[in-house]
């Protein structure tokens, strides 16, 4: 069994054409299993994968798979991508358009032609595309293309698998099915798999280890819950689905209670948030999920929640299966309620409402 760790220490100046340039500077260890590389576009995720695969050369650093060094800037080691035994599935999949599915999948096995047929047949079956073997890429669907791309990479028995947003554009069910097949394959092989995505659902679905990347640096590492539910950076917060990002100033700290009071910018509203490393008059930003806020049409009483804010509904908008209400309490909040609640409470623009926020639903974010 190939059970190996991937250790990568990379520094590379990145001159992006759409995003501003940044310095990719990080040190990461990827254990066997699926590790998710999460972050907004332009954070350097694809560049990191390119460095690991050997398609780009870092300015400095060291990349090793267990004990074998594939790149070391000090020792002048740079193994070409052909020999790294690292599989890489690009976002565009890069299936060879002029070859059949079978030829595509067998491409990496050209050195061992006799075994190739058998191994290709086996993996086509494992990824459930064996009926497509004689078709060309333009004749198969998106989901099938993704399976073929995975099969092509994995048939070579790589030591590491890199996936760059491999499931974008597919529906949830298809994604889940492909992910299951991938897990099944890795249950036997146990190689490090680095999975890049900017989709929160995929992070939740894959649920293993997450590394959050922003502007070329790692900002957070841990379980999906840890990384996504307590974002420290604004952009990560936006990516992770915090609809409310409010500026606030610290009023005072209450250490025995583990909280601090902050005043929301542009209003007299004050709320209690968990204690953080701040001092009175410091400026910070508070992130709150729209789904974490309760709405009442009568002043609530005797609640455990410490923050009750009076306000007026500014607008109501249907977004798929929920209603997004914008409420002005001095600061504007976005609150999600169900259509049933909207009906029962007879919500409408202009109605006076009370918002309830739990202290621990308020996360503070830097930047």
């Amino acid at each position, binding site marked *: 069994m190939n059970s190996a760790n991937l250790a990568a220490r990379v520094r590379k100046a990145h001159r992006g054409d759409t995003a501003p340039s940044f310095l990719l500077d990080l040190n990461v260890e990827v254990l066997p299993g699926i590790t998710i590389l999460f972050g907004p576009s332009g954070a350097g995720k694809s560049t990191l994968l390119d460095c690991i695969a050997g398609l780009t050369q870092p300015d400095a650093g060291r990349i090793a798979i267990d004990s074998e060094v594939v790149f070391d800037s000090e020792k002048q080691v740079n193994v070409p991508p*052909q020999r790294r035994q690292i599989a890489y599935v690009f976002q565009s999949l890069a299936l060879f358009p002029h070859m059949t599915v079978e030829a595509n999948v067998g491409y*990496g096995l050209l050195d061992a032609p006799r075994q190739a047929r058998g191994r290709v047949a086996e993996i086509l079956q494992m990824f459930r595309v064996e009926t497509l073997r004689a078709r060309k890429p333009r004749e198969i669907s998106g989901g099938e293309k993704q399976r073929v791309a995975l099969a092509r990479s994995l048939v070579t028995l790589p030591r590491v698998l890199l996936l760059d947003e491999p499931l974008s554009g597919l529906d949830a069910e298809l994604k889940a099915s492909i992910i299951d097949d991938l897990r099944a394959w890795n249950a036997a092989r146990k190689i490090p798999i680095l999975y890049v995505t900017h989709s929160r659902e995929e992070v939740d679905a894959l649920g293993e280890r997450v590394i959050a990347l922003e502007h070329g640096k790692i900002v957070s590492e841990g379980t999906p819950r840890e990384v996504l539910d307590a974002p420290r950076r604004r952009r990560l917060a936006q990516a992770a689905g915090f609809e409310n990002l409010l500026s606030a100033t610290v009023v005072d700290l209450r250490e025995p209670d583990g909280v601090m009071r902050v005043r929301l910018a542009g209003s007299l509203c004050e709320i209690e948030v968990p204690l953080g490393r701040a001092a009175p008059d410091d400026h910070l930003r508070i992130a709150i999920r729209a789904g974490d806020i309760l709405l009442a049409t009568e002043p609530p009483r005797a609640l455990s929640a410490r923050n009750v804010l009076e306000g007026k509904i500014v607008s109501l908008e249907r977004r798929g299966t929920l209603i997004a209400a914008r409420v002005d309490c001095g600061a504007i909040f976005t609150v999600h309620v169900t259509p049933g609640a909207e009906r029962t409470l007879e919500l409408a623009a202009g109605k006076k409402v009370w918002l309830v926020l739990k202290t621990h639903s308020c996360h503070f974010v830097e930047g």
Partner: protein
Amino acid sequence: MNFEALLLSIRLALCVSAILFVVGVPLAYWLAYSRWRWKFLLEAVVALPLVLPPTVLGFYMLLAMGPRGPLGRLWHAAFGHGLAFTFAGLVIASVLYSFPFAVQPLIVSFETVDRKLLDASAVLGAGRIRTFRRVILPLSVPGIITALVLSFAHTLGEFGVVLMVGGNLAGVTRTVSIDIYDRVQSLDYLAANRAAFLLLVISFAVLSVVYGINRQAGRRQWLPWAAK
């Protein structure tokens, strides 16, 4: 009807196209994928025959093929006789003259191959040669055909360069274009018209067949002058 001249022209065009393919493909590959900062100078040199008048090129070729010129000296050392006024001399001069017509379509076609496919090929373990044979080449077939056809057609119609270095020897360097010119100068307009018409018909037939085949492959053509 002077078939000898016509056959000579066709032979010349075939030789030149074959040589341009063999020499042009590696050069085009290098120019398409190299990141050398002075690459643009070499590209300009390759394009020079497009702007040089053929008689100018022919004249300098004549000097180069002379006993004091670099080509002439090499040839004489190797073969014991001069290079001018020979079929080989025509081939060499024509190769130079048709150079950009072969190389530029090849460069364009290599460059338009999706880079991600080349990356995928590398990651899957294929070296440069295998990637070229199995990915770049098959996806460049329209460009290769264009290069071959243009070299062939351009050489078939060549006049100025042949006039300068050919010496007008029947069966050796008297190509059909020279022959037609001779007929005109001798006031034999009837023969000139006949030869010109035959040349036109054959050229048109060849070009139509090739473009027809290429069209069936389901791919589009482009003009080398639109590149870069």
